Structure formats: C-alpha cells, structure tokens
C-alpha cells in the first residue's frame, strides 16, 4: 500500500507540475506596460511555491513508503515529541519566504495603484450595467457632461442608456460607444461606474481587473503597449446575463485614434 501511495502521489505531483512548466495553459500574452512586471512576479512565485509543493508531496510519498509497518522486520519507532530547534528553523524559513514574496510584489502593486493617472492620460469613463459595458469620452472640452438617472433608457443604448443630460453644455461633445478604442503607448485613465449591481471590468491581456461599484467612481489606469483587439469580460457575478457581458478593447495608433474620435464627434453634430 505504501508503494502504491508513493507512486500515485508522485505521479499526481509530477503531472500537475508538468503542465505548469510546459505552460500548456498559461496567462494570455500580456499587452500592457504593467504585464511584464506582474508576469515576472507570477513566475517567481510559481517557482518558489512549486519547489515547496514538489518537496512536500515527494517527502509525503517517500515517508509513507519508507516508514510503512513491515511487521516484525520494521525498524524501531523513535519515541519523540518533536524538536523545538527544528520548529524554530522552519517557522523562520517560511516567514522569510512569505513575507519576502509579499514585499517583492508590493512595489509593483504600489506603482500601479498608489498613484493617480498622469495628467495627460486619455480618459475613458466605463459604465457597467446588466449586461453591457458603455464607454464615454469627454470630447475636446475634456469634461464629462452631467448624467441623470431619471433620463436613463437602457433599451435605447448609447447616450440614453447612460442618462446623459443633453442640456448640460459639457455633455454636447461627449462620445458614448459600445467598443473601447484607445491609443497605444498612452496611459489610459479609466473611471469605473456601475448603474445597478457590481460588475468587474476585466481585460486579461492588460492584466487589468477592477470592480465597478454602484455609487462609486473608481479611478484606475493602464498603458497598452501593443495594438490589437482584446476581449473585455465581466468578472463579478452580476445576474443571469453575466456570461455574455462582453466587450472589445481596440488598441490603435495615436493617429487612428484621433481620426476615430473625430469621426464619432462628427457623427454627433
């Protein structure tokens, strides 16, 4: 029985580890400035935790086999209540490992989340509602116009879904879209809102996830560094259509972005 246990535990351990190392299924390729740092730390954590995982499982398998009851030929059981020195050693080692890992990742977290977006960041307001994302650009005046819950018409989509108050001067040049278009290599400031329940704005390739919470306007930022189309998902259970609350992020060159935004402005006039 001891040998079977050893074989099964080792097999499970090595098979599981193989798929991590072979990266058969892995993080989607990163396309934001923060992705490299996050992925690097992911790998560091993976290597350290992987060593602990393999060491613990391999020891478990080996110990149950070596110290199995072999009847009269068993070696003598060591009567021992433990070893204080060893306890202290492994307490210290694990403390160093866990706190060390934490400190390493804290600087990345701080650089992402402890500072506001740069002043020249491209600002996009993202609003989640059952079950769609809407994106609003402030237009040439740089100001988002007022919205009014009384004016909301969800079925009409676009501006009406957001309840944009067209009487407000600042709202005249606001552009509302169902696809998020941003220029590459510029910091994007995202202002997250939700109308009804909590949603979560998740762009896996940007290593970006943040809940959109009704009653809050949450300011976040990220910098896409590669042009392309990227899928946007909702990551917080928001109701029966949660699975199809899907959007697209198009990262384009600055020129294309300017052209696109100008065209939307022109449509509005």
């Amino acid at each position: 029985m001891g040998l079977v246990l050893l074989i099964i535990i080792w097999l499970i351990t090595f098979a599981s580890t193989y798929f991590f190392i072979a990266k058969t299924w892995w993080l989607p390729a990163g396309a934001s400035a923060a992705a490299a740092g996050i992925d690097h730390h992911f790998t560091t954590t993976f290597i350290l935790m992987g060593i602990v995982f393999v060491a613990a499982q391999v020891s478990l398998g080996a110990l149950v086999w070596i110290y199995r009851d072999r009847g009269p030929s068993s070696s003598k059981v060591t009567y021992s209540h433990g070893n204080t020195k060893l306890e202290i050693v492994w307490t210290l080692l694990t403390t160093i490992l866990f706190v060390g890992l934490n400190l390493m990742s804290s600087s990345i977290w701080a650089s992402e989340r402890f500072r506001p977006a740069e002043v020249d960041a491209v600002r996009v307001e993202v609003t989640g509602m059952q079950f769609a994302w809407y994106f609003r650009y402030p237009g040439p005046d740089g100001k988002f116009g007022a919205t009014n819950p009384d004016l909301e018409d969800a079925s009409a989509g676009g501006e009406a879904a957001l309840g944009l108050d067209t009487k407000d001067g600042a709202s005249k040049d606001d552009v509302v879209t169902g696809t998020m278009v941003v220029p590459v290599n510029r910091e994007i400031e995202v202002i997250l809102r939700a109308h009804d329940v909590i949603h979560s704005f998740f762009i896996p390739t940007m290593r970006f996830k943040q809940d959109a919470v009704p009653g809050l306007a949450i300011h976040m930022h990220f910098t896409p560094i590669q042009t392309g189309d990227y899928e946007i998902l909702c990551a917080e259970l928001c109701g029966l259509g949660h699975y199809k609350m899907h959007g697209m992020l198009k990262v384009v060159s600055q020129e294309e972005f300017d052209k696109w935004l100008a065209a939307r402005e022109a449509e509005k006039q």
Partner: protein
Amino acid sequence: MATHEFAAQESHAHAAPQGFVRKWVFSLDHKVIGLQYYFLALAAVLVGMFLSLLMRIHLIWPTLALPLLGDIKPETYLTLVTMHGTIMVFFVLTTAPQGGFGNYFLPIQIGAPDMAFPVLNMLSFWTTLLGFIVMIAAFFVAGGAPLHGWTGYAPLSAMQSTGPGEGLGADLWIISIAIFCIGALMGALNFITTTLDMRAKGMTMMRLPLTVWAWFVTAILGLLAFGVLLSAGILLLMDRNLGTSFFVPLVTINGQLTGHKGGSPLLWQHLFWFFGHPEVYIAILPAMGMCSQLLSVFSRKPIFGYKAMVYAILGIGFLGFMVWGHHMFMSGMSPYTAFAFSIMTMGIGVPSAIKTFNWLGTLMRGRIRFTSPMLFAIGFVSLFVSGGISGPFLAQPVLDIQLHDTYFVPAHFHLIMGVASIFGIFAATYYWFPKMFGRMMSESMARWHFWFSFIGTYAIFMPMHYLGMAGMPRRYSQLTEVTYLHGLIPLQKFITYAAFVTIAGQLIFLVNLFWSMFKGKQASDNPWEATTLEWTTATPPPHDNFGGHTPVVHNGPYEYNVPGAPRDYVMQSDPEIGPAH
C-alpha cells in the same frame, strides 16, 4: 480546579431517556445529537453534490435538456452555483465536523458525561435542521432559488428586480442562513463551556487531544463570526423588505430608479468576509485536528511538536480574523489596506506550514498502518499542501488582479476548504464508526473509495488552476460568448468526466456506511489501539459515556511506543508513565 471540574460534571448529568422520541428524536444526549448532525450533513452533501453534477453537465453540454428539469437556463445555472456553495459551506463543512463529530466525541474525549448544556445542544440541532428546510424550500417558491452566489453580494442580493430568484427565494436564503447562525452560536457557546468546565480530573489543557483543541478554537471562531453574519443578514433582509439602504446606493435597474440611496455595497462585503474568512477555518480546523490525531495513532508515534500544533491552531484562529480583506483586493477598497491584508494573509501561511512540517515529522520514523482512516489522513495532508500552495498567489494583490474571480479561486478553495475538509470527515467516519455503531466498516470498500476520491479530486480541481490562469472567469453559465475561452472547453470536458467518476466513487462510501451499520464485523472497544478516552469505554458508549464512573487522566494524548511500556500505546487513563516522558 479539579474538584470544580468534577462538580461541573455531576451537575450536568441527566437520566437516560426512555421511549423512542426522547431517545432518538428530541434527544439531549450529545451522541445522538452528533449523529443527527452527521446525517443532516449527509443529506445536505447529497443535495450539494447533485447540484454540482448538474452544473458540470450544463457547462459542457449547454443545450442539453435534463430529465425533470428540462432546459438549464443561465439563471438556473447560477441558482445551482448559489445553492451548491451555500449548502456545502453551511450544512456540510460547518455541520459535519463540528456539529457531528465534535458533538459526539468532544465530551467523551475530555471525560465528560455530556455537553455542558444538553437542552441548548438539542436546540442547536433543531435550529440547524429548520435552517436546512428553509434553504431547500427556496427551490420550490415562485421564481425559484436565488442566483446571487453563496457570497450574496449586494446590490444583486438586495433587490427583487435584479434577476429571477431574487424574490421570495432570496428572502428564504437569507432567513435560512440567519437561522443557521443562531444554531451555530448556541453550539459554539456549548462547545466552549464544555471544553473549559467539563474536563475530567487530570485532563489539563495541554493533555487535550488535538481534535478537542481544534473543536474548541473552531467554536470560538464561530462565536465571533456567526454573530456578524447574522446581523448582516438581518440588515440585508431590511434592505429587501423594509425600504432601508444599508447596502444599496442610488441605483437603477434596467433604467428604473429603485428608491434606494446612500448605502454601501462594500459594507456587505466587509461584514460578509469578516464572517467568511474565519468560516474557512471553521471548516478546516476540525479536519486538521482529526488528521493530527490519526497520523499519530497510525504511525504509532507521538505527534511531532504537540505544543507547536496547539500554538499553530491558535495562530490560525487569531490571524483568520485579520485577513478578510484579501477577498476584496479588486472591490474598490483602498489599495493601501490591500497591502496590510496581504501581509497578514501571507502570515497565515506560517502556522499552516508548521502544521504540515509536523505532520511529516510525525510520519518520519514511525510504523505506518495503512488503515482506511489513515489513507484519508495522508490524503488530507497532500490536499492541504496542494490547496495551500495556491494561497500565496491569491494573497498577493498584483497576482490577484489576474486570478480573482477566475477558476483559480474555486480550484484553491475546493482543494483546501472543500475536499481537504471532506477528507477529514471521511477519515473521522472510518475511524469512529466502530465506536458509534459497534461495527467495523469494510476496509476493501474504503480503499476503493479512497482511490476514487483522491485521484478524482486532483483530476477535477488541478485543471481548474490552468483554466484560471488562462483567464476563464468563474460563474459563467456558458463559455461560448468569449472567443478566447473556446480553446479551454476541452479541459472543462475533462473536468466533467472526472467529476462523473469521482461522484460514482462516492456511492461506494454510501453503500459501505449503511451496509456496515448492520452487517459490519463486530468491533472491539479499542480496535485501533488508540490512547484517547473514547477508546476506554464500551462500544457504543453508554448514555453517561463511561458507565457510572468518571475517568481520571494521567497521560498526554499521543503516547505511542513509549520505551519500557508493556505495549506500543499508553492510554490517557493508564497509570502515569513518569516525568521522564
């Protein structure tokens, strides 16, 4: 102190009941109440497992209509998710290890005739059962059971108009949890008082079996955590039915104003997770205690580092209340607090690692007997390591950005709080069944059950880590809407097939359980040659546990292979083995 303890026991003694109803239904006997909790949990786990099976089927065959149920609609899928999680967490993982085995064996292991408050004990069970009935009723009311997930995040859970199932079904869901909390609070008081006041002469705190330590600390966690959840539940009910706005700001549903304003959705999350994280330890601590116990018994060796194990249980319990914010890194909570919650969470890895080292240390230089309880205890260690190792990924906010709300999270918590705890329950069942029913369970069926469960668990939950890293969100009823998820569907298929096999393996357990009750081999009083007090008494134990006498304890709980002793174990009630040990 000793005389006082003895007096406490005398004053709590009660006569053996006559008649079926007082003996088996409204029983005051902790052993009967323990069995009642156990079978309640067994009923609940069958429901919970059936729901998970439906989820797995729907995920890979989304258009398949099921017998009786018809088409699974997206909202039906979310109902399955919600009820599976709620039933498993409350009525299985909290109920079986603590209410079931804790009730049955804590008094016997400390040498007491019953719990400190037998009437309160009976009330705890009947309250819990009422909670379960109300929870099941949610399936059958108009609109059906709620879809807001076991975490019940407001505002989704706070208004009827947010989706199907959010009407009466959601009210019943909250009421059921509130009732459960009341039962759990009564139980916790009883466990704490019993452990502190009812110990037999000589049963000092540092001679308590680690199972008792685990039940004791679990009860303290329950006392502190369930009160908060109960209050939060009442506030949520008020938001839903009395027009208050504790958790709901000004929101519109489908463009319509709801009349709420000024509340905070994050407040619910804080209150919920202040309960929810300690709840993880409420589920796993008793399993840790059982695992420690069994590794020592079946390695025929004292537990490695008893004191360190006690301090680790206390450390985990204490830190468990400091880390709730790690569920909320992406919630809009201040990013500065994330730093603090993260470091505390990583800190909880330290006592967890100590326990793992000590379990391995216990096996080392032992003489391991591969009995069925031991197999599950070894399986527990393996699962505890595998489930624990993904913790430091989720505990670091930068990595949680990618992993939060993906399959990585269910992979993590199913391994550690779900299946590892269930392995604890299985181990305890195989171990204590002879004491409870006077018969042995079939070892060969138990072995088959172990291999199905152990390999099956890994086949189900290890691939979920890969899905999570690849960015598959959890709680999606269909995987076809997002293009990059298409490539991951084969892995989902594999998981469903693995679930079929694993669930089939559980039938072996059910057969073994009921078959052995009537047909199992007669058990002796101490079939495992173990040392704790439950093995000193008759099988099954008499109404007052020790047949009229109160045991006196002279030794620690894990004295195996003591040099010079006549046999390879020294019972706690045997004459003292001397200061040298």
